[in-house]
């Protein structure tokens, strides 16, 4: 018998007159259709009600932190793709900015604004999945299918810029690998024109829907104090009423140049989390519009800038590699990982789609990081799952899981 059976959680009161074990042990996961990823929960249930839950994580652990110790900086970007793969561009940019902080690279404003556009598109794509999955888990499938078109459009924009869709490896240290193409801007125009209407309809499907409200209000709630103690960040923390957003408290990538609000909830339950994410999508649209206007304001040579001038870290264009000596040397040095970086310790964090994504990079002056640690938001807040679900029904626990926006890739690193 497992440990939890012998010692039921002390805060649970069994009905009077109970003798011994009257509960059932249930394995939810690791590969259950309702868990959207590799999560295992060993539930102790009394009928339909959860008495205690114990999570097992690590099924897709890939030792990224170890691998990173043998790789030059630019080869670590693809590892970050595979953390939160619903919004890989944010991870990529966060990593580039960490490197830039260590190396002392200043990026041009146009690069910052282009990055903001991409990061906010990624945030929308991520929230879109999370919120529509909450809908699916409460029995409403159409919203999910409907918004997929627009996630597809976002992925097409990525594709125009970096060539890939899910694990994007987008951008380089110092900027982007190539300028945004006219097609990318056309798709962005289309997105900005069509998406607000779609989001409005999507919200309309759920917001005042009685079934949805009754399924989500009051489920999986947490107080602000407990949430902070559990290390919640991102929309999950904001749903409890704490207005902590890395984009505002420690602005990076010129976020201080754009104006937006931080939506907050009050009860921290599934409905509040869902609402906060929706409002964040509106805010992201606002941010994209502002950043896009700023990009359009650049003229002449400035409008062609898409990376900083850092030959030590930024791969030269292939055309130059074939024809110019200097470019060939840099190309060779970068590809072979022969560039020493300055010694130092950097912690840099970005507002990922599900919370504060941090990179703690220690360099001893070598060519690869001495140590790299990822602060993965959902690994940290998933601990609270057992507290969030104890006492609730199994079907509510499934909604709680999807509304926390847990991404197995990020959790297990």
């Amino acid at each position, binding site marked *: 018998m497992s440990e939890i059976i012998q010692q039921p959680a002390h805060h649970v009161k069994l009905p009077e007159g109970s003798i011994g074990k009257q509960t059932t042990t249930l394995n939810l996961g690791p590969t259950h259709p309702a868990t959207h990823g590799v999560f295992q929960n060993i539930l102790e249930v009394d009928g339909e009600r959860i008495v205690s839950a114990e999570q097992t994580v690590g099924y897709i652990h890939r030792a990224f932190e170890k691998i990173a110790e043998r790789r030059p900086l630019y080869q670590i970007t693809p590892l970050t793709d595979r953390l939160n793969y619903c919004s890989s561009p944010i991870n990529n940019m966060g990593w580039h900015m960490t490197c830039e902080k260590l190396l002392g690279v200043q990026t041009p404003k146009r690069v910052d604004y282009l990055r903001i556009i991409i990061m906010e598109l990624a945030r929308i794509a991520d929230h879109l999945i999370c919120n529509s999955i909450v809908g699916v888990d409460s029995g409403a499938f159409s919203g999910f299918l409907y918004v997929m078109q627009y996630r597809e459009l976002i992925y097409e924009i990525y594709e125009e810029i970096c060539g890939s869709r899910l694990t994007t490896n987008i951008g380089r240290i110092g900027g982007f690998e190539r300028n945004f193409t006219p097609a990318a801007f056309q798709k962005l125009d289309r997105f900005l024109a069509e998406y607000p209407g779609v989001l409005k309809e999507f919200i309309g499907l759920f917001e005042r829907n009685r079934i949805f409200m009754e399924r989500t209000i009051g489920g999986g709630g947490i107080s602000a104090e407990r949430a902070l103690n559990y*290390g919640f960040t991102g929309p999950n923390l904001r749903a409890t009423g704490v207005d902590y957003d890395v984009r505002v408290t420690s602005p990076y990538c010129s976020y201080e140049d754009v104006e937006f609000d931080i939506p907050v909830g009050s009860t921290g339950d599934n409905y509040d989390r869902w609402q906060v994410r929706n409002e964040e999508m509106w805010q992201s649209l606002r941010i994209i519009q502002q950043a896009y206007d700023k990009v359009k304001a650049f003229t002449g040579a400035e409008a062609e800038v898409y990376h900083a001038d850092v030959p030590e870290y930024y791969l030269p264009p292939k055309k130059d590699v074939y024809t110019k000596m200097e470019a060939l040397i840099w190309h060779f040095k970068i590809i072979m990982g022969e560039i020493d970086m300055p010694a130092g310790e950097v912690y840099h964090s970005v507002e990922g789609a599900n919370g504060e994504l941090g990179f703690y990079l220690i360099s001893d002056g070598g060519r690869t990081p001495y140590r790299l*640690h990822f*602060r993965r938001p959902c690994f940290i807040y998933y601990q609270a799952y057992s507290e969030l679900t104890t006492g609730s029904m199994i079907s509510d626990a499934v909604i709680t899981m999807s509304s926390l926006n847990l991404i197995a890739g990020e959790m297990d690193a």
Partner: protein
Amino acid sequence: MELTPEYLQNRLTEKFGDDLRSVETTYGMFSFEVPAALNLKVLQFLYDDPELQFRFLTDLCAVHYPDQKGRELAVVYHLHNLRKNVRIRMKIFVDILQPDVYTATALFSSANWQERETYDFYGINFVGHPNLKRILNVEEMDYFPLRKEYPLEDQTRIDKDDEMFGRG
């Protein structure tokens, strides 16, 4: 009171005297070291003090420095005062032969899994932890993989049969 590095250093020196070591501010973050036995006292002080209020544990991880005899393993805490928006970094060093560190789970619920992860990869024994067992690796594992004595494969090794790897 603004939490400048000087102010933080003064307050900590006032309280802990010579136990405060290696104070520096790198890349905008105030960073210091304290003896391993004092980690909880310092965390509690930083948490409770009405001026300091470092009540958010952002990150907890370990680092292995095999060349520092007697202090091979470092545990690094990143703390955040959300009200005043100041981040600090606290380090403690322990001997790899006896890596005992008091757990911070009583102060921060978020330390629970992060300490388990740190134990899993570095073998830091968090004294008083409610459930100190491996979290990401398999339970049968009998070593701590992120320590430096387990290097990744040398990419230039030549003892492999190249034909098997398309290099023959």
